[in-house]
């Protein structure tokens, strides 16, 4: 056995020596006035020193790391562009997943940057403040690198030209947008519970892993590289999510019911938003990674189960309605795709009926439900389209007051009956898609009655005009190119030409 070595100063001690005295209590102003937001949510903190910063990163080191990551990433992006990387993807249908990501998810990174910038000012504890500030810069880097990674596709494919503009206006993009609006307008602790814990920790593997493995499976190396570059930041983000939960739960027992309510709320809001990812996995990837059902079982039921088993020690219960969400994993991708198939004339990406082999794959992955409920409908739509009667739904759907998804999801025990709930507030009726969304509404009705619901706004004349084409122009869509069925789209035409050239060569 080797000899024992002499002890020296640990990394933690060195860091505390380096940063000592950099945080201080104010003297001529009351701390409560300087930090007015960190106690009004009811979270009680006795000792801010109880916050453990596991990263101990200095700003100097932070810049050095991030600039190295950028150098690497941009080298890959450049070579992807120079080598016409877009020709190496499996099929042009894949790009529709990128369209959804760029308009639906990338702007959330920017929203996250805004949120973390805000709360990075609001905590009186130095540890969380610095962690939030660094994360704010990470998020800005993520939105920027995502736009740059995908900009190459914008040269050839439709629907990628106005992501931020669309994010603010387009009906289905109000689903992710309202999620972050809700989080950013909450207090700082709820913001961290929603984004750092529920989103970055509990649900992140259901959002990023499917997109990034989807990219890898479908030959999109630019997006894969972005994924690796971002993932090296995510560890810090996930740790922040776990740390804030432990911190709140350990500081005072009166925090427990508040944290539980936030977990219930943000778990449900998160799963609602993930309906978009579910349909991406099951329908939009020409080469599939795994089914949504499988992803849910691995990342939520198993990994989330281990987490909530540990949280039970604090008296935290698994999120309310987790059982319903698990039932939904069997149905939600099919129902969401069907909604978009109905309204793809008003969407900035294409939809289609999967080919026979793809339908067989879905039958295999969803043996008890797909053939019974969804395959006959898709085959019918396919027949109609081939007969020149591609179905588009010309009425506008009712949206859930909370998650803002069209109310097309069903009761999970009865997949032929639409699910909806009604609440009353100040003499008006408000509709929600589920018990989960109804609970959220009922707890803070004054907040959710202010929701900017795209369909209501269209009917009120706030979205460019009375006719669908007026609204789509207001969305900045190129009509006939960005929207409608994939078969016959300019994307498909271009792709087929490239493939024909390739055959000739």
């Amino acid at each position, binding site marked *: 056995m080797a000899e024992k*070595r002499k002890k020296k100063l640990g*990394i*933690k001690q060195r860091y505390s020596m380096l940063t000592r005295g950099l945080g201080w209590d104010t003297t001529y102003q009351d701390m409560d006035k300087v930090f007015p937001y960190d106690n009004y949510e009811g979270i009680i903190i006795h000792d801010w020193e109880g916050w453990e910063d596991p990263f101990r990163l200095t700003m100097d080191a932070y810049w050095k790391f991030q600039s190295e*990551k950028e150098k690497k990433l941009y080298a890959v992006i450049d070579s992807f562009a120079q080598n016409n990387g877009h020709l190496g993807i499996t099929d042009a249908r894949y790009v529709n997943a990128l369209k959804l990501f760029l308009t639906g998810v990338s702007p959330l990174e920017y929203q996250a940057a805004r949120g973390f910038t805000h709360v990075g000012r609001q905590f009186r504890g130095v540890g969380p403040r610095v962690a939030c500030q660094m994360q704010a810069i990470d998020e800005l880097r993520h939105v920027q690198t995502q736009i740059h990674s995908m900009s190459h596709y914008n040269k050839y494919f439709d629907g990628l030209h106005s992501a931020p503009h669309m994010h603010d206006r387009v009906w289905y993009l109000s689903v992710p947008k309202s999620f972050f609006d809700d989080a950013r307008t909450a207090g700082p602790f709820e913001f961290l519970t929603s984004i750092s814990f529920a989103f970055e920790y509990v649900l992140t593997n259901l959002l990023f892993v499917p997109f990034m493995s989807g990219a890898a499976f479908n030959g999109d190396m630019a997006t894969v590289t972005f994924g690796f570059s971002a*993932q090296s930041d995510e*560890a810090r983000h996930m740790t922040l999510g776990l740390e804030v939960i432990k911190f709140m739960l350990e500081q005072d027992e009166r925090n427990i019911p508040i944290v539980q309510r936030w977990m219930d709320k943000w778990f449900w809001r998160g799963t609602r938003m993930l309906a978009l990812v579910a349909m991406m996995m099951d329908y939009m990837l020409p080469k599939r990674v795994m089914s949504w059902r499988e992803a849910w079982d691995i990342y939520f039921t198993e990994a989330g189960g281990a987490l909530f088993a*540990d949280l039970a020690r*604090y008296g935290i219960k698994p999120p309310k309605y987790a059982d319903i969400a698990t039932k939904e994993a069997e149905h939600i991708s099919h129902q969401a795709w069907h909604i978009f198939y109905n309204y793809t004339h008003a969407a900035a990406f294409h939809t289609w009926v999967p080919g026979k082999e793809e339908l067989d794959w879905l039958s295999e992955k969803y043996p008890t439900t797909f053939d019974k409920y969804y395959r006959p409908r898709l085959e019918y739509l396919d027949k109609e389209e081939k007969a020149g009667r591609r179905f588009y739904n010309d009425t506008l759907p009712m949206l859930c007051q909370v998650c803002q998804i069209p109310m097309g999801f069903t009761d999970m025990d009865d997949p032929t009956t639409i699910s909806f709930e009604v609440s009353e507030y100040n003499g008006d009726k408000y509709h929600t898609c589920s018990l989960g969304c109804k609970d959220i509404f009922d707890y803070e009705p004054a907040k959710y009655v202010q929701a900017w619901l795209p369909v209501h706004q269209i009917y009120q004349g706030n979205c460019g005009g009375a006719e669908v084409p007026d609204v789509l122009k207001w969305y900045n869509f190129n009509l006939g190119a960005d929207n409608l069925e994939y078969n016959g789209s300019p994307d498909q035409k271009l792709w087929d030409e490239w493939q024909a050239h390739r055959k000739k060569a």
Partner: protein
Amino acid sequence: MSYALTIEPIGEVLEVEEGQTILDACLRAGIYIPYQCNHGLCSTCKVEVVEGDVDLGDASPFALMDFERDEGKALACVCTLQSDVVIEADIEEDEDAEYLAIKDYKGTVSEVVDLTPDVKKIIISLDEEVDFQAGQYIQLDIPAVDGPRAFSIANSPDNSDHIELHVRLVEGGQGTNYLHNELVVGDILSFSAPYGHFFVRKSQNKPMIFIAGGTGLSSPKSMIEELLKAGYGEKITLFHGVRAAADLYYQKYFEELAEKHENFSYIPALSEKKAGDDWGGEVGYVHEAAERYFDGSFAGHQAYLCGPPPMIEASIRALMKGRLFENDIYCEKFLSKADGGGDKRSPLFKRI
């Protein structure tokens, strides 16, 4: 082929198998290095290689930059050794850890006594002193049994010319069957020691709670004997949970100890009191006895848990409900060979 891995700043030395990652070796030895993805992608487990050759494995170029590779950084979750290696990791130093070197010993069985119908006390006498911290365990080689078995040391380090073990007969267990049925006074046994990170954090000067289940009494006995002898000033409370009165042992010993020391209390509890048991003490699970005794409030204490996994888990929940958290909870799980890999955990907790 295996290599020696030295971990700074604590100076601990581990044996690492060929192909075994640094992280795996550390976690198995009870040394916590912060980690997250376990796939070389996230960089949470970054360590510095101070000496020796390593294979960096499948570390993502974004999680371990080129300049960091040049500086000798590595990701513990994918890094393997190619020589004896010294690393520096983000490990918090434990003021009370003595980081004693592990050595091999040979001793003579000098006593085999029944403590209960299924627990034997075994004393192994030695010609030399054994270096260990109260609470640590030995790896005992048992004749005709594959691989060593772990047993906690029940005597205090002040009395280290022998090792006292409490061995419960595990049904179908090769090792304990041998010790119960074959072992006789005069036999020679070899073992290596000391192992484990279960020792008292006395430098923090907090009142201590010990919760022991069955033969989980061994470590607390060693720890409490040492503390009382050294004149530890804070309150010490020992809860010992067994099934029925026949399973309780050392009751008189601890009662006498409690009479002698004002700061020491002893509370045995029976979870399955039998009809004929002459018993006026606590009935129910041992963590429930602790909850009653402390009126459900544990804040400000330090807790040491030793026993089977269900007892540990129930006790952790009771303690956390009573506002005592990971930083003040230490545990030693008694797993038998049959318990296997254990359950899946999240990264929420590091040690418990």
